């Protein structure tokens, strides 16, 4: 049980986190938000890499600011952005990180390193320097190291960035399997990642949690209020002024505009059709605080 109570964090004038509170239990938790929303800041705070200015984070009742080891011992963490020591092979580096994780038993470590490398499909390249990997390969290495030592809390910051569709799918599968007895926090700005996997999620914007709940609950809130229409490019601006525009998608032959409204828009903007909301609609609706 991970409970985040009223944490705030600012960098100079930027308030990266404002009074964020969350209680998380075993299972997969998705954190959705645009660039700069504060997702990474939250995750780094959870990963004990920085301290909140105020508020507390408790893992199973223990304050991790006071007792960071409690978190670190059960944590698997994949940073959004990381580098590796040059000229060091995947096996060597992973083995090294495993020791830092406290896996001191040589045989156990060896098998775990082996199987992890196989699982993330880096086995054939295990003796190549990680620094020469492609972006996606390096990301897979990051995933492997996050899984070292059977972590009970897994924090992954945009793990699917740079993965090809096949790998992304495999990784998401793995996460959902692992979520059975773990707390997993996954940040992303790709709505599909969350929709496919998470039973619980939060939407972050400007350092705040703007919405929290199961994806279907968030969608339910706007059920029957989403209207779509295909329009010309130059009409979009006018629509934005009048309506709560959720999103605009450029498609063949024009732009599909989705708006949030209790009733079908009328007048100059007539012709909207009611449509079934998806998570993306819910995301924008909450992010823009239309609901």
């Amino acid at each position, binding site marked *: 049980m991970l409970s985040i109570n009223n944490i705030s964090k600012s960098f100079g004038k930027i308030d990266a986190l404002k009074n964020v509170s969350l209680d998380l239990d075993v299972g997969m938790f998705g954190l959705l938000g645009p660039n700069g929303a504060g997702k990474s800041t939250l995750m*780094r705070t959870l*990963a004990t890499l920085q*301290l909140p200015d105020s508020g507390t984070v408790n893992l199973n009742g223990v304050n991790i600011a006071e007792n960071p080891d409690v978190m*670190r011992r059960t944590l698997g963490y994949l*940073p959004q952005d990381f*580098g590796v020591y040059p000229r060091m092979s995947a096996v060597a580096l992973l083995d090294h990180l495993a020791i830092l994780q406290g896996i001191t038993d040589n045989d156990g470590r060896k098998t775990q390193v082996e199987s992890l490398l196989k*699982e993330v499909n880096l086995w054939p390249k295990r003796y190549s320097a990680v620094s020469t990997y492609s972006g996606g390969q390096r990301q897979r290495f*990051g995933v492997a190291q996050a899984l070292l030592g059977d972590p009970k809390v897994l924090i992954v910051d945009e793990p699917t960035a740079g993965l090809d569709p096949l790998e992304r799918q*495999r990784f998401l599968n793995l996460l959902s399997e692992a979520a059975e007895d773990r707390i997993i926090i996954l940040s992303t700005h790709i709505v599909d990642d969350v929709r496919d996997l998470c039973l619980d999620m939060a939407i972050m914007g400007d350092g705040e949690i703007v919405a929290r709940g199961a994806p279907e609950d968030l969608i339910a809130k706007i059920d029957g209020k989403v209207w779509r229409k295909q329009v010309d490019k130059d009409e979009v601006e006018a629509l934005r002024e009048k309506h709560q525009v959720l999103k605009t998608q450029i498609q063949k032959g024009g732009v599909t505009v989705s708006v949030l409204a209790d009733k079908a828009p009328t007048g100059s903007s007539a012709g909207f059709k009611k449509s079934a909301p998806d998570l993306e609609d819910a995301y924008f609706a909450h992010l823009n605080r239309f609901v």
Partner: protein
Amino acid sequence: MFGKLLAFEIKLHTSQIGFWVVVSIMFILGALFMSLDFLSMSATGERIKANGALTVAVMVSFFSMFSIFFGAVFVVGGVMRDQVHNFLEITHSAPIKTSTMMITRMVGVYIAVFLCLFAFVLGLAMGQYMPWLATESLGPKNLLYFLQPTLVFMVINALLVSGIYTAVAAITRNKALVYVTAIALFLLYMVSGLMTTQSTPKWVMALVDPFGANALALAAEFWPAAEQNTRMSPLGGYVGLNRLVWGGFAIFLYLATFKLFKRGLVAGKNKNAIEAETLSTKAITLPTAKTNYNTGSAVKAFWARFKLEYLRTVKSIPFIILAGLCVVFFALIVIIQLNFAPDPVLPTNALLVGMVFGSLSLPTMLIIIFFSGEIIWRDKVAGMTEIIDASPVRNWSLMAAKWAALMAIVFTIFIVGLAFGMTAQVFMGDVPVNPLTHFKFTAFGFVPTFALYCILVLFVQNFMPNRIAGMVASAAVLIFFVIGINFLPFAHPLMDYGSVPAGSLSELNGFASLIGFKWFLLYWGSLAALFAVLSIWLWRRGLQSSLRARMKGLRKRITVPSIAVASLFLASFAGSGAYIYKSYNIDNNFRTAKQAELRRGKWEKLLGDQLKAPIPKIRSVDVEMQFSPSQQSSVVKGTYILENANAEPLREVYVSVPVSHKREILQLDIDGAKLVTDGENIKDLESFGIQLFKFDPAFMPGAKTTLSFELVQSPPVLGDGSRILRNGTFVDNFSSMPQLDIRDRRLTNPDKRRKYGLGEREKAPDRTDMLARQSLFFGRSADRVDFKAKVCTDIGQIPIAPGKMMRTYAENGKACRDYQAINPIMNFFSFLSADFEVVRSEWKDTKGLNGKDVDLAIYFHHEHAYNTELMMQAMKDSLDTFTEIYGPYQYNQIRIMEFPYRSFAQAFAGTIPFSENMGFVRDPGDPDDNKSVDLATYITMHEVGHQWFGHQIVPAYTKGFNILSEGLTENAAMTAYEQKLGWQKARRLLEQYTIQAYLTGRIVDRDDEPPLAKAEGQGYLNYNKASWVFWGLKHNMGEEKMQAAIRGFLDEYGTKNAPYPTTIELVNALRAAAPEDMQGLITDYWDRIVFWRMSVGGDVKLTGNEADGYEVSFTAKVDKRIASEADGKETSVTEIDGESLNEWVEIGFYDQDPKDTLGGDWLKLERVRITKAETELSFTLKQKPTHVLLDPRRLLIERNVTDNVKKIITE
């Protein structure tokens, strides 16, 4: 476009804090180096002005060297900034022409580097106005003195440095390699400095230093103060050559870089990507593994980290390059030292390991500075911080691994150095390897200090925001503690971080005492341990790791056990510090440099008058010296018979006792006199080691009395060593027995005297002062004395004193010997004790010149038998020569004894203590090679020579006194050396040592240079100029005539009592023997300071043929210049009324370059009388000459002889 871009570049550099930090540092350095005479690079003061033309030029050229360091940083920031900030892909595809981009960046860096250097010049100029700069040290302010060297040196040096780095940066695109280049450049600079002390060819010396300081030093070689103050750097010659070569190289580098630089990314290699990826789509199953977080796993993590840190470093290209440079540097030092050094030494164990570390220290410091940054910032630079810091690994595992790795790297270098040192020794094959010596030297002399330096540097990194700042700060603290602290007038060993003094290592005695070593190791070790604890508390973990954030989080990191440990270290640091302070400052007599100077001023006020007050004379000495080498202590007991030889009665006598504490005086009594125990100055007198006795009734003229004493030399304690060594003790009477004439402790440096308001120092008495002629140069308290000694020491060692050995016996479990002088000796004797090996021989008086044979013995350390035969032969050769030329030898024996640490040999009556670093381990070289110098033979001959000059001829203490001792001895030694090895080998020694030492000695003297006959303490006159003058004189007036004159002088004054002779009597004897046309020359040599200048003007004409002979004609340019005593300003005799040119000049003709024969093997040697500045000369020769050389035997005192030779060009 270009202008705008350049402006941008310059703004980029000037907006960095680092740039301004460097500018301010350089400016401050300039101001300080100008205004503080103890920092100045010349011996500035009243003679050499702080703002003199050459002083400024030397500093400007030398300080260009600093650009090595900041230049590298600017290049990385300027030229390489895209790589550094991972911006390469963006800017390199921007629409700017590569050429424009490259040029502006290069010029930008150049301007930044130049501005920083120029700040130094501005600082120098400002320094002239600092209020603490004494007006006497300032010459006229001349802007040109600053601008000219800026143009000649800095403008080009900045171009060179930025050019080199830009080239490396553009070609390798590797930051680390730019820094490595910096270190390599610095080492090159060090090697170039090393060469100046050796006999490397001058053009090599001039070229090898890229910054021109060497070339300038060569060009300005032997400039006296007057010239240093007003002559600017020459533009041609060595300086011109150097500037042309390096300036050209810089421009070449710029052009090459400009050409070579290609846009885009450098492809990386991927060796291992052979196996194809096989993608599986099955779901991942998480494997499990046990984790644990106990101390064992923390240790394991430490070990894994340590291996990683260490191996990553030693396998990195920078390390391999740097280690390679260390080895090259070491090899160069060995090669230069053993081959090119004018005085080669044998590769003994102590010497070799000393060389290893002599050459490794500096590169190792650079390695510490560089790799401490690399190691501490490794994770950050690699981008691994988040992963590692979110793992449960303990802070201490991470930190200890980094710290241990840096130390392991340093030790790796040491081990490599040791291995190379021992291998080199094996290859040279002269001396068997003794690994223990190598190991001991390393373990005591270097390991602790360097470990402490590592820790300091790592500790400093805690407070630095990034790698570069860390490296700069590390360099700053190391420079401060290694060099800077010694300049502080209030420096105390307790401030000298890292200094764990083991002392020097002797092959006889090992380390003299390790007490200081142990305490300082505890003291600094505790501080280092405290640093470690603090560093764990301050360890950077996570992302918000600014110092402030870490300070805020400190509370959480400070745990009870860590507090306990920290307090323990703090307590042992403070405790050992307090104990050391007590031992040094309270129990013993430690004084800072400043305190010591002040004390000498106080001494002068209190006791200056006593230097002239009448004192009794010691007539006989009877002494018993009991050494306990195993305890490092001794007891000396004895009596002096005193006589009042003055005309008036004596009422008091000041006895100076060489002990550190009053309690070490067991007995001190004078019959008929009472020790004064209270009175106004008694405490002060005691603090200077002086006991005052009052006679009541007065000690009447002609009366005798007895002084009896018993003094203890205590074993070494912290803060005070012992003169008694476990093996190889050597003490003289001044350092072990009471003295009646107090040692002159007045400050001699005139600039210092001015500073402390002491007025001008009274010089030695005039030569005509008849009262002064009553006292001999060893002191006023004795003429010759009867001497009897009993010396005892531990069984296994041999006790030695001057005099005939009367008896050897054992007494109270000690080995004892009785010695007695067969005729009265100087009141100057020594006591030695060591576990000696002995070789004996006898010099046979075959020609009957001596009246008796002389026993010869050499007492030496068993490992040092290399030259004993040679030294024995040198003693015999000396006796042959000296008995023949100067008359009989006065004692029954000559013995040479080896002693440790210090580097000199000293002649006591028939007894010569000889340092283990001198003759015993010198490489005498090939006797047939005229270029090699055999110092083992020479020094032995010198010390034997003293038995005549110093022990038979005893000078009065007046101006010029030491000429009669050292000067005449040098002449004697040169004569014996020449007889044994030939005149060319002798001339080599003259050029290599004597001439060099005179010409350099006179320009670093802060006091005036007197004419030779009136020299005082100046070694460059007493030994060197005297030797040169005797050489010149004997070849001018004839060897036999001159030696006969000296023999006559010796017969008249040798072995006689007061009045003692002076240089007046000597010079008169020489004048009497010299022909009329040499009288002027004698005046020039002895009574004034004269420099001749000779050169061959224009071309040499050669006509004739083999059958009829050849006619050579040319113009000889000759000038004689008289130098001022105050600042060496020279005036030609042609410009002085009443003077004229009338000189004997020798001219040699050669059929090969005389350089190869060292001026010997001439076809013909002519002597002509020259009276004009330019003289047309012509000579006929039978053989065809190729070279003409003026003064081939260097008979005239001349500074620069490169233009004395001319190659003859035949049409």
